[in-house]
């Protein structure tokens, strides 16, 4: 079958799944930096759990422009690409961390991990507001 964009319902479904995202930011020297991350998607925004003293956080504090790729790992391939701006926040930290960890790791392991992250006192959230969403699939 031919390549096409995803429908809005297919985008919601892909983003509600447990694929990893890859987040691209810009380094101090202007070069790109991409790294796999867990994410949450809520009210049209992407949320990523991170720390203050890691490269992606330092990068977006200097230059908020980011790009995100969320792709199914196997055929039938599908992906959502988002371009947008990121900012750091701690609003709703516990609820968002918990929801992301449970989605990826289930109630037991995910719940433990979420508590660890919250209790560390080090976690911050990167909130990404997309300017643009693109999608693609090649149905089998």
């Amino acid at each position, binding site marked *: 079958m031919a390549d096409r964009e995803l429908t809005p319902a297919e985008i919601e479904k892909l983003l509600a799944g*447990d*694929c*990893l995202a*890859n*987040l*691209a*930011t*810009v380094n101090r020297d*202007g*070069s*790109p*930096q*991409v*790294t*796999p991350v867990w994410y949450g998607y809520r009210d049209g925004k992407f949320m990523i759990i991170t720390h203050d003293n890691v490269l992606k956080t330092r990068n977006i504090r200097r*230059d908020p*422009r*980011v*790009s*995100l*790729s969320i*792709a199914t*790992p*196997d*055929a039938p*391939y599908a*992906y959502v*690409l988002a*371009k947008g701006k990121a900012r750091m926040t701690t609003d709703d930290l516990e609820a968002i961390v918990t929801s992301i960890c449970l989605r990826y790791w289930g109630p037991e392991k995910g719940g433990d991990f979420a508590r660890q992250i919250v209790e560390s006192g080090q976690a911050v959230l990167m909130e990404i507001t997309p300017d643009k969403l693109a999608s693609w699939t090649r149905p089998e």
Partner: protein
Amino acid sequence: MADRTMTADEMEQFLSGTCLANLATLKRDGSPQVAPVWYEYRDGKFFVSTAGFAAKARNVRRDPRVSVSINSPGEPFAYVLVHGRAKLTTDDMEATVTSIAVRYQGDEEGRAFAQEVLKSSDNVLIEITPDKLITWTTVD
């Protein structure tokens, strides 16, 4: 469980699997652009097949700095992150396009897909020479 960097053998083995890569390039305005791609790792370089008119090819032609993330889709979590420089080439195009497609899709489907791709006179290879490789794996 513990996290550690991969041995050289583990990295070779991981990169010869069928995880997707995510390739980050720079747009004209300096913002990052990331997209999932198939790749091949050979002789210490990464090869990605794409259309010459594709954004990633145009981006690389203007600014060769790229970042690549190759990660396992789930547990056990493993990844290779690459910072490097890319150039466009058509050397060994048929062999490389075929070998990539066959690795991801199997012999029959892969060869048919490669033939389709090679019909286009615009197809190019992005050849990435890493300056830096970072690896990570989770072991029991």
